[in-house]
């Protein structure tokens, strides 16, 4: 029983982190139809910005709890600066072109951002460990967990619910859904589609940076952060269905629990199991678990 509980907790820990990372990716695809390879770069930028902001907050002798606000602020700052430059300054010139071209553009952006982060922050690692100890430890039998991990559960649920509520229960959200359904019709009804794109892309960048910022206390922030994240989050959104928030949640849960089970029971299969889950889902649901089958427009 203890073993099962441990497996579940570990799975949920991993899933909550994965969900926050993947949410922005699926949102951007849902609205802009962009498979954003640079998503991992925005995650890394969030981590670096959090390192700077938390360091700055510590230098101001603020309460350690304010480091959480500093991390949130870091994610907002990244989205406010990077999203308009990227979307208005680069991506919009490729709208309507082949989706593969957009993948290549975001891949190029990913490579550029890797060097940009190095130019700004250098190659040395940054540590933001103070927030990691804020929530103390939680003991389960012989195991001790860091409370921060459970705080991430809360953040994941809050981010998911906020995104769902904003899309489905607000006027702006309905406009976004209209653009998702048909940008042409939405435009003819007076919707400024380009503005919706900018806002949606900004939200995606914010979520990526938020994930990076709140992951920073657990890791060493240094070059190369972005690579593995983007691969994993692609697996999650493909399992769930590209563009689906519910799908990203279920995909993250499936991957998190499968990985946890593998590490506990068959460690050699850890890497394999994530992609086995993805392949298994795609065999039966090629469009992912939650993506609605769309009529082909003629």
């Amino acid at each position, binding site marked *: 029983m203890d073993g099962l509980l441990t497996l579940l907790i570990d799975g949920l820990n991993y899933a909550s982190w994965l969900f926050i990372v993947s949410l922005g990716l699926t949102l951007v695809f849902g609205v802009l139809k962009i498979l954003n390879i640079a998503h991992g770069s925005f995650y890394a930028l969030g981590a670096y910005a959090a390192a700077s902001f938390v360091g700055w907050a510590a230098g101001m002798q603020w309460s350690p709890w304010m480091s959480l606000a500093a991390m949130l602020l870091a994610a907002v700052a990244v989205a406010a600066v990077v999203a308009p430059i990227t979307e208005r300054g680069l991506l919009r010139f490729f709208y309507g072109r082949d989706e593969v071209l957009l993948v290549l553009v975001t891949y190029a952006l990913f490579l550029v951002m890797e060097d940009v982060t190095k130019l700004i922050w250098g190659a040395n690692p940054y540590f933001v*460990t103070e927030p990691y100890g804020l929530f103390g430890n939680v003991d389960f039998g012989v195991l001790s967990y860091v409370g921060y991990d459970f705080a991430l559960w809360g953040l994941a649920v809050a981010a998911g619910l906020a995104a769902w509520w904003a899309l489905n229960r607000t006027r702006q959200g309905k406009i976004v859904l209209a653009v998702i359904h048909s940008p042409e019709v939405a435009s003819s009804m007076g919707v400024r589609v380009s503005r919706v794109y900018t806002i949606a892309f900004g939200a995606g960048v914010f979520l990526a940076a938020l994930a990076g910022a709140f992951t920073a206390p657990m890791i060493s922030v240094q070059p190369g952060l972005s690579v593995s994240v983007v691969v994993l989050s692609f697996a999650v959104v493909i399992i769930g269905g590209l563009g689906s928030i519910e799908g990203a949640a279920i995909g993250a849960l499936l991957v998190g629990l499968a990985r946890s089970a593998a590490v*506990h029971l068959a460690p050699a299969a*850890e890497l394999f199991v994530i992609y086995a889950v993805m392949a298994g889902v795609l065999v039966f649901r090629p469009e992912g678990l939650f993506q609605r089958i769309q009529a082909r427009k003629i």
Partner: protein
Amino acid sequence: MQFQRSASRGTFRSALCAVAASTALLFAGGEVHAQETFKIGIVAFLSGQAAESFGIPAVNGAKVLVDAFNRSAAPAPYGQKGFGGLKIEAVYVDEAGGATKQVQELRALYDREKVDAVVGYIGSGDCLAVAPVAEELKRFLILHDCGTPRIFEDGKFSYVFRTASHATMDNVALARYLKAHNAKARSINLINQDYAWGHDAKADFAAAMGQFYPDATVGQDLLPKFGAGQYGTEISVLLSKPADVTHTSLWGGDLQALMLQAGPRGLFKRTQLVISAGDHVLPVLGQRMPDGVILGARGAYGQMAPKSALNDWWNDIYAKAYNGQQPLHSPYRMAQALLGLKLAVEKAMVANGGKKPTPEQLAAALRGSEWDSPGGRIRMALADGHQAIQDTAIARTRYDAAAKKVVLEDIMRFPAECVNPPAGTTAEAWIKAGFPGAKNCP
């Protein structure tokens, strides 16, 4: 008119001679120019996850050393300007991007950049890929850092050398250290990255521990992917079934993340952590590195380096160039490669009448040679003189609050012959046979 004609002829002849002389001078000048420099391609990770820990420090080490050579500022026997009077010109290439890209980059270094030698490669996969290409092109290559023993165990090369011990040394030394300190090791857990380096390291360590602790059992054998960053589940597994000893060969950001995540959960209070290559994370982790961790540095490097004038000089020039930083494993390994290359070039030039040597002459000079490095004596003793062996050291960590740094204490040195397999046998067979021929072990 006659005079003029003959004058004209004379002028024409003179002009022809002048052109011929100028052309000859131009060619001679070209030859002199070609003689003036020795061009080295230096390959290390300048981006990606290995950049911070290994690639950039290696390049930093190369830059400071090349500069010292070119200024004739190195101590004897490395005091000649450049390489035997030839000015050294270095070209730096990023190792990131995978083995296929590295093969292309290596060809470009030889064919387009016209380098005389390539020194580099940290990743074992990259070493395995580029070594046969250099051999096929008949061009000179020094592998300075990668760990896999398979390069010279599975292949035979004329133009390829590795000027540092392979990874077997690191893990055999760890096992010997535990035995020498009578450490409790009835059970062992392993956590290593799921690629060649991690697989080789855990196999060597488990096999070596099997020799010293025949009753020891391996419990958890975890293989997180390279760059995983999140180790919560692995830590739960290690905590739920703790072993006397937990071995890891994680490095760089992965090792730092493991330490950051496992420390607060109390893992290091329940097990003796041993790290095969851990010195490079000490300056950045500082007090986040727990006391009592047993670790190696892939050689007698940094705080574990033997006292010598050469080591003092090396630490001094590195610290002056990089804000007081101490060189660690990666720049040490770059230094021993460049020092060996310098002596080989100069020896080959003497044999070649003072002219720049060919790759064959260079290979002949380095094959089976020996030289002093800041980390101790390097001997090209294995693989027909193409694979180095060197002394190493293992130590225990303690955070010194006054000095605000992790100090290494209880340092134990292992002579090269004690922790490296002798010529003619593979690392795996040597360990399984109980280290036959191991000499001078402490």
